[in-house]
């Protein structure tokens, strides 16, 4: 069961997700050690594999660095649920096969520590702590196909073959 780590903030940016001082490597495990460091130095210690991050508007704004997604993937974050996403980050998530869940009521529906189960295909978040079902709009088909193929490059490879 995934635990929600809620950050009641808008505009959580790529510098906070993975500070530029660590961009001299693209090793996912190395990046994962510093995931969310400038926002919450404790995140890496308290997050368990599969846990989700919940945040406000414009998550991932700033840099095009895909390192932000790799840091989250490396830290085994299950998903990010945000009220809205910045464009390049959102696209990078899809390209990496990491599902970004856009949920306008995210900060109202999910509290810090809530236990969640997510059905990506059906577009449903089960909030076990509150006994609630919250639906979200699944990705459009073409993006879903990319995510299901494991990311854009595997998708391209599959199409060419």
């Amino acid at each position, binding site marked *: 069961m995934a635990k929600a780590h809620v950050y009641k903030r808008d*505009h959580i*940016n790529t*510098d*906070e997700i993975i*500070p*530029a*001082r660590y*961009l*001299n*490597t*693209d090793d996912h495990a190395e990046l994962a050690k510093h995931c969310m460091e*400038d*926002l919450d130095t404790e995140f890496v210690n308290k997050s368990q594999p599969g846990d989700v991050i919940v945040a406000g*508007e*414009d998550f991932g*704004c*700033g*840099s*095009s*660095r*895909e*390192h932000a*997604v790799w840091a989250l993937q490396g830290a085994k974050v299950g998903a990010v649920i945000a009220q*809205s996403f*910045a*464009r*390049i980050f959102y*696209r*990078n998530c899809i*390209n*990496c096969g990491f599902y970004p869940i856009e949920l306008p009521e995210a900060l109202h529906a999910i509290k810090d520590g809530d236990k969640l189960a997510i059905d990506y295909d059906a577009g449903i978040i089960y909030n076990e702590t509150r006994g609630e079902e919250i639906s979200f709009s699944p990705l459009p088909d*073409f993006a879903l196909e990319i995510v299901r193929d494991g*990311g*854009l*490059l*595997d998708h*391209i*490879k599959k199409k*060419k073959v």
Partner: protein
Amino acid sequence: MGMTITEKIFAKAAGKESVKAGDIVNAKIDVIMCHDVTTPPAISMLKEKGIDTVFDPDKIVVTPDHFQPAKDIKSAELHKRLDTWCKEKGITNYYKLGKAGVCHALLPEQGHIRPGEVIVGGDSHTCTYGAFGAFSSGIGSTDLAAAIATGELWFKVPASLKFILNGKLSEGVYSKDVILEVIRQIGTDGALYMAMEFVGDALKDMTMEARMTITNMAIEAGGKSGIIGVDEVTKKYLTETLKDTSEYDVFESDGDAEYVKTIKIDCGALEPMVAKPHLPSNGAPISECAGLEMDQAYIGSCTNGRIEDLRIAAEILKGKEVAIRTIVVPATPEIWKQCIDEGLAEIFYDAGCVVSAPTCGACLGGFMGILAEGERCVSTTNRNFVGRMGHPKSEVYLASPATAAASAIEGKLTDPRKYM
């Protein structure tokens, strides 16, 4: 219904008669910008997936810049991977150290940007090239890998926001102040997923350098791109710089093209602006924040490290001494040389500034000007996020080169008009 300039570029790139905002298209890419942070991972991905091809070695422009010259062993390894790949693939436009510069200043200066084209790069400020009437947008490493391999990418054609920039800028007020005002008005996600199209008579007085400062910061309003149509100023710049002198496509938005919103800015009424921490949208006129003490001034970056910016800063610093650490970074080797030839470097030296080789270093907290805990920097860069230039408890104040230079003299946020 007519089309915007952005829709026309996508129609051409997708081989269609017409497209409209919201359409998903597969677009041919004309130029790919590559640097040392996001490209080495793209190269590795391609190798891993066994699709290690380059669609066209002449259409990829490579310049290390973020950690250039290499700041440590890890960044040296990134450069080595980039170098090996460029040699292996026969990349024609590879700018090595000595010729390398801050990407978004280097590509236009070296004649790689042409109107009507689709340009992508592994850097969020790739939107800069929209100043030339091109569609230009930042992408991540996976998109970069896909573009390098196939020469095309899928795009959702963006809807457009129109900004009418009217009036004449007062002395001491620059295009940086205009874009800080735009972002202040619409917020850091005010143009999310959209193209920001700039029109209006204020642009006529702006050089290409000044226009690039505006389109550079489109991403700071969440924009997919920024775009300014081609005029005589553009054509003159292109005549002097273009490598490929074949004809280019000049597109214009139709009179009945659809915009999500039109926003008018009276540029004549603007005063110098400062974006306070920790968002580029926290803009305030200098009259409201002058006097706040600073520890460092930084004049450079893809936003304001061009020769025109350095001339403005030098004009203010001439015969003066700075009161705080002041770092001047010409964005390209050409600009660096101009700085020396025109005597600007001497002015900076006399004023007590340090003049660095071209690099993105300090702008993103990489190296060459990192802030300690509690320090404040007035900077001509584009972002003032938490920890952007160093310690998470340091602060960045975004401003024009004139405001940064005047603030360097007094050691506190200062109205540059005082020194004009």
